[in-house]
Every structure is written in structure tokens, then in C-alpha cells.
């Protein structure tokens, strides 16, 4: 019997140096010529859930309280929970713990396969974003982590800013899977002048787990 093959909507042209297989995904841990940052990392294989419930404030997915107002996020134990509106939240398993699975309750939808997910991390992240969207990441009104739902390169996206201080800056961006090729092309093209390079998951893991 053949195993299913799960294919990321993100195809990067750099040469992989180190790869791993997990849950039928081929994951690149390191690319050749990653440079000194900023980095573009494909996270499309990370478990992502959508939670919708009329009583969402009473729910604590994986023991974590959902933020009380739209746009707010919480990052705890590698799990990111973003409040989208009165009844909806998205959940990303960023640190990739193996024991995290979809809860056995109503209201959850696994959206991992339907959307692309990338991280842009390192210095000059917001200079790159500024070329692709009019969203104001640097507004003092928003304290990281926070969620924007808006256009990025004219595509409706969820963008979570995890850090907006200097070299530690980083965002997570998700949008519909079908935009994958063009979205990556647009980001790499905008980041070219800042030496944005594709990077493997090791870079992201080091960044998200830094003290």
C-alpha cells in the first residue's frame, strides 16, 4: 500500500542540504546559501486549526485561554492562538510538539492542507512587508504578538507579528494555498534588495525557541 504524499504549496528554488520526513511531509531543515538573514521559512506542514464557537470565551484549547478581543494573540508552549472575531480563533502549532493533535470536540477544523504558511524572520522584515502591504505593523497601538487580517500583495491573509524589535523581528503569514507560487515570488522579489533568502526549519526553530 502506498503512503499518501503531502505537498507544500510553497516550492523554493534553493538546494536543500538537510531534509526530514514527518507525517508524510518532506520538510527541509536547511538550505544551501541561507545567508545572514532575513529568512523566508516554509511552515505549511505545521498543524493549523480553525476554531469556531458561539461560546468561544469559555474554551481553552490545549489548556490555553483564548485572547478576549479580536487581533490579540497568545504564544504559549509553542502554540499560537489568534483571536479573529467574536466567535472564531486560529491555532498554529509553531514549535511542532508531536503530542498536539486536533481536540476531540466540535468547532475545530484542520486547515493545514488548505493554506500556505510562511515565516519571515530577521532584520528588515517590515521593510519587506512595507513593499507589499499598506498595513501598519509598526504602529505603537499594536503590541506583539498581534494579528492582522488584511491584504498582503493584494491577497487576503492572516499575518501574525510575533516580534517587531530589530534583528529578532518576525511574522507568520498564512493565506489560501492557491496563491502559494505567486505569494512566494512576490515576497522573494520584494526581499531581494534586503538579501532575503529561503531558509530551512532549523532557522525558524532557533528563532522561536530563543530566550
Amino acid at each position, binding site marked *: 500500500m502506498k503512503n499518501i504524499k503531502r505537498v507544500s504549496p510553497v516550492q523554493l528554488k534553493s538546494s536543500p542540504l538537510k531534509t526530514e520526513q514527518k507525517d508524510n511531509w518532506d520538510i527541509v531543515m536547511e538550505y544551501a546559501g541561507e545567508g545572514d538573514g532575513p529568512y523566508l521559512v516554509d511552515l505549511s506542514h505545521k498543524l493549523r486549526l480553525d476554531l469556531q464557537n458561539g461560546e468561544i470565551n469559555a474554551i481553552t484549547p490545549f489548556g490555553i485561554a483564548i485572547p478576549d478581543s479580536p487581533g490579540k494573540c497568545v504564544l504559549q508552549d509553542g502554540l499560537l492562538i489568534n483571536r*479573529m*472575531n467574536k466567535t472564531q480563533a486560529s491555532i498554529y502549532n509553531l514549535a511542532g510538539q508531536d503530542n498536539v493533535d486536533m481536540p476531540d470536540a466540535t468547532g475545530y477544523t484542520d486547515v493545514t492542507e488548505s493554506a500556505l504558511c510562511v515565516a519571515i524572520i530577521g532584520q528588515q522584515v517590515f521593510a519587506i512587508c512595507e513593499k507589499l502591504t499598506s498595513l501598519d505593523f509598526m504602529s505603537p497601538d499594536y503590541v506583539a504578538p498581534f494579528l492582522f487580517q488584511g491584504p498582503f500583495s493584494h491577497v487576503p491573509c492572516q499575518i501574525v507579528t510575533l516580534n517587531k524589535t530589530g534583528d529578532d523581528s518576525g511574522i507568520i503569514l498564512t493565506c489560501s494555498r492557491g496563491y502559494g507560487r505567486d505569494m512566494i515570488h512576490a515576497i522573494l522579489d520584494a526581499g531581494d534588495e534586503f538579501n532575503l533568502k529561503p531558509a530551512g526549519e532549523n532557522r525558524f526553530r532557533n528563532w522561536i525557541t530563543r530566550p
Partner: protein
Amino acid sequence: MALTITCPICGKRNGYEFRFGGEEKGPRPEEEGLTPEAWCDYVHLNKCVAGVQEEWWCHKDGCGSWFKIHRDTTTNLEKEIKTVIEEAGK
């Protein structure tokens, strides 16, 4: 300055992120005794106010929510509900 619209979920954003949903026309007419003419008028006739009117908008590039705002059609600027009430009371 182009139109900006305040989404109740996402806050103030560029008007290009939104889709216009028409004038606010009040509740849907009762089905009982509704004539085709009355239904047609409800669906198709607009007031086209030259001034402040209440409108439906959808944040299509953002959170996807439908909501109402007040917009001055002569200046193409959104009006805060507080201002609209104050001006109506003058």
C-alpha cells in the same frame, strides 16, 4: 485622501479592502401581503442621498465581516455615528 473605513473587528483601514453592500434600507418587508411591486421597490430603489447615509460594507480582504457605517456621499468620508447624531440634532 482616499476613503478609509472603520471595520468593527480590524479598525480603520484603506477603503480598497472593502466591498460596498448598498444603502441600509431597514428590515426586510413582511412576506404576508407583499406584492411583487413592493418587493421590487425594496430591492431596487435607492435614496441616493447627497449627504450622510447609512451603508453596508464587507471587509472582503480582511476579516470578512459585514457591518454598517455612515458616509458622507458628497465628500466620500466616513462619519462617526456620534457626529451624525449631533448634526441631526442641530
